[in-house]
């Protein structure tokens, strides 16, 4: 009798709690159109300059090096997720939150970041600079 009563109470409590716990978890949002993105147009950026653009749901960084080469990287710091920026004075990528530093290939070179920034591919399509995810990235 006690088992029946206890079991009934337990299942009753579980049937109330389960929907509440599920309700607390937000539904996942599909990453629509985030694999291929026009970052800017040719001639829009100056050498030794940068631009932050929206890539899917996250920010990404497009660099035009002093040598005239385009590079695209994730702008999300691998330490604690702040948005990084290019420092033309240092020729490096810098995170203002915890003073993390990356080189122009996204390699973590000083400060607390534990991993390099994700790299993206850059293509030229007409006069548009298109950034896409690397396969397997």
């Amino acid at each position, binding site marked *: 009798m006690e088992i029946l009563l206890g079991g009934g109470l337990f299942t009753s409590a579980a049937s109330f709690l389960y929907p509440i716990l599920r309700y607390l978890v937000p539904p996942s949002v599909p990453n629509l159109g985030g694999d291929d993105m026009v970052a800017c147009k040719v001639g829009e950026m100056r050498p030794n300059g940068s631009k932050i653009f929206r890539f899917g749901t996250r920010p990404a960084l497009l660099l035009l090096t002093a040598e005239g080469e385009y590079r695209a990287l994730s702008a999300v710091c691998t330490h*604690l997720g*702040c*948005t*990084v920026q290019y420092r033309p004075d240092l020729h490096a990528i810098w995170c*203002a939150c915890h003073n993390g530093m990356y080189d122009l290939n996204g390699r973590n070179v000083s*400060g*607390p*970041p534990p991993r390099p920034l994700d790299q993206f591919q850059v293509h030229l399509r007409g006069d548009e600079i298109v950034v896409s995810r690397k396969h397997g990235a």
Partner: protein
Amino acid sequence: MPEVNLFAHIRCWLDERFGWAEMAAPLKKKTVPVHKLSYWYFFGGITLFLFGVQVCTGILLLLYYRPSAGEAFESVQYIMTRVQFGWLIRSIHSWAANLMILMAFLHMFSVLFLRAYRKPRELTWVSGMILLFLALGFGFSGYLLPWNTLAFFATKVGTEITGQVPIVGHRMMIFLRGGEDVTGATLTRFFGFHVALLPGLATVLILLHLALVQKFGISVPPSVETRWKTEPESIRQRKFFPNFFLRELMAWYIALGVLGALAAIYPWGLGTKADLFAPAPAGIRPEWYFLFMFQTLKLIPPKVIFLDGEVLGILLFGLAGAVWILLPFIDNGRRQFGRRIVLSAGVFAFSYIVALTIYGYAAK
């Protein structure tokens, strides 16, 4: 005097129905110890007073605030520029939040160094510590509500830290953010935490904390207690009502004066609206009460043996917080060793927090 008669009539009316005199009797008997360290007793009361200020000004801000990413910043701007005395109400709310946490920290360290957590007051300490964590939660959730750049990145870093906790961290981060990233969904959640969940929990905990203080009375420092035992004629007590109560009211009045002056002379700024795709600005740092943790995370190297630096930092702070709650059980009065551990932990924690906070402000 008709006023006196009216007052006596109301008291009589309440007494007939609820036994008012019986209910108020313990309050009349209650006393507060008097000694050279008595002034530390005021800090708990001042913290409570500032919580009351937060409730009142928070309700006033709710009349105009709109909790959505598209409107939050603009609604705070509206409060500060268009609503009469809106700037003052918001400034008082921000200043009182900071002063409340400062007073809570002072209250905690005074309880620690005066060893007021000793048996039978262990659970008073535990409930107080949970209240301090709730106060930090109030600060963290409220900081995001104006939806400005500083708040956006502070929330990004803070919730990312939660995400680093092994096993459950990622789920906790998703729960806090309302998704993978800090967005308008995070703002809505934080608003709910700030105005409904946390106030509800804090009210229950405050009532429990006060009930425990009432039940066990106010602690006397061990040195004074020893002297009072050997020289009972030196015992000095003050009636809680009205003697201590009126002194406490004076302390509240001074706190209100300081608060009003700070809010009026240094009105709280708003900054720039959060841009989800802008880089973190230079000089970014959290509120002062999180600065020692922020600075520590800055100093830990990326890898320590096999652990990521930030994971190690978070695990160490988590462990320190858990040990801190359990301090009264370490110094349980049976061994001299326990007392020394707690005292050393207190001195170390106080020095560490002060030093890293100053370093955080001084560092680039």
